[in-house]
């Protein structure tokens, strides 16, 4: 779609579904539905996350997020944000599937209000049950290679380790763990949460991650639309650099210009 500078066969593939964009964006915290729609458009993302919440029965508002983000155009990825137990997360996924007909879910089981780090014990339990019920499960997890492996073992179709706490903008705190996770699992590794600016997304992709998921970095920027576009470029640039293969790091200089024919030299 927007990744025209990458090889045609370079796709993010989740459960047999192919996506040209490796950027997944959230839909929270925007000033308006219209701004949200425009930011998603400029990010080039093909997958967007949404949350599942009780309707306000006393005042059902007429406008709906999905009036602005056409589910025919975008793959909608409902999340289980705010769930603190496997049971609540499973209920939320079942409701999301019935409400929208989507089988792919972003599974979150939060363990702590302050850090929003996942409760990985509950996460693995919920993931196993949801896989049994036919869901395509994309779990938000911590940057722990062992948990990532367990999630793959129970049948998750991707793993989504955090770069840093949700909304923190700290960038990748432990790039080496992301590298180890990428080495140890066969399903796509999508770094989810913690990206602050474009370079964070590029670094993530340069590490070999299969994708990046972000929300606050775009929605919270002074100019969300420009940041959305910056993130599109950043993810493509990082992917290109990864595919191109970076040079090894060395302690000392290696001249780029010829060492011969320099004026004023007698040798």
């Amino acid at each position, binding site marked *: 779609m927007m990744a025209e500078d990458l090889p045609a066969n370079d796709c993010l593939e989740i459960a047999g579904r192919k996506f040209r964009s490796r950027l997944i964006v*959230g*839909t*929270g*915290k*925007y000033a308006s539905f219209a701004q*949200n729609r425009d930011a998603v458009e400029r990010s080039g993302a093909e997958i967007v*996350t*949404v*949350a*599942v*919440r*009780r*309707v306000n*029965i*006393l005042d*059902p508002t007429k406008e*709906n*997020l*999905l009036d602005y983000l056409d589910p025919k155009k975008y793959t*909608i990825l*409902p*999340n289980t*944000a705010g769930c603190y137990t496997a049971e609540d997360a499973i*209920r*939320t996924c*079942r*409701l*999301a*599937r*019935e*409400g*929208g007909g989507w089988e792919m879910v972003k599974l979150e089981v939060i363990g702590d209000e302050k850090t929003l780090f996942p409760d990985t014990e509950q996460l693995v339990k919920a993931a196993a049950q949801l896989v049994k*019920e036919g869901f395509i499960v994309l779990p938000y997890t911590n940057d722990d290679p062992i948990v990532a492996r367990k999630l793959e073992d129970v049948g998750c179709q991707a793993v989504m380790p955090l770069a840093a706490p*949700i*909304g923190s903008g700290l960038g990748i705190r432990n790039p080496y763990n992301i590298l180890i996770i990428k080495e140890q699992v066969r399903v796509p590794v999508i770094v989810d*949460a913690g990206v602050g600016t474009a370079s964070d997304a590029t670094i993530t992709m340069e590490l070999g991650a299969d994708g990046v*998921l*972000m*929300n*606050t970095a775009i929605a919270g920027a002074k100019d969300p639309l420009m940041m959305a576009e910056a993130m599109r470029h950043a993810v493509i640039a990082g992917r290109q650099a990864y595919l191109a293969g970076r040079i090894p790091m060395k302690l000392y200089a290696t001249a780029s210009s010829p060492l011969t024919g320099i004026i004023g030299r007698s040798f």
Partner: protein
Amino acid sequence: MNGCGACLGRGRSSAEAAAFLLGVPIPGRRPSTGTMKLKVNGESLELNGIVTVRDLLHSLKLQPGRVAVEVNLEVIPKDRYETTALHEGDEVEIVSFVGGG
């Protein structure tokens, strides 16, 4: 989750139960004239003339296509809104999709 198992046999005749299983409208059931107490999204509501999930959505002015409904922890498929009867004290959750990350 088909949402019907737990509700069967609660105040229904066998004909009604069969109709329910087949997913056809229950014949002969008229909107109740009495009130029914339900817990909807954590709020205690006392509603008039509610028989089915569809009636509840209608009375709350909610478009059935835009929401998902759970009754006593069972997700109700959209095609069963009309045939799923609600009962006094049922706990109902009605959700929709909002912005999130």
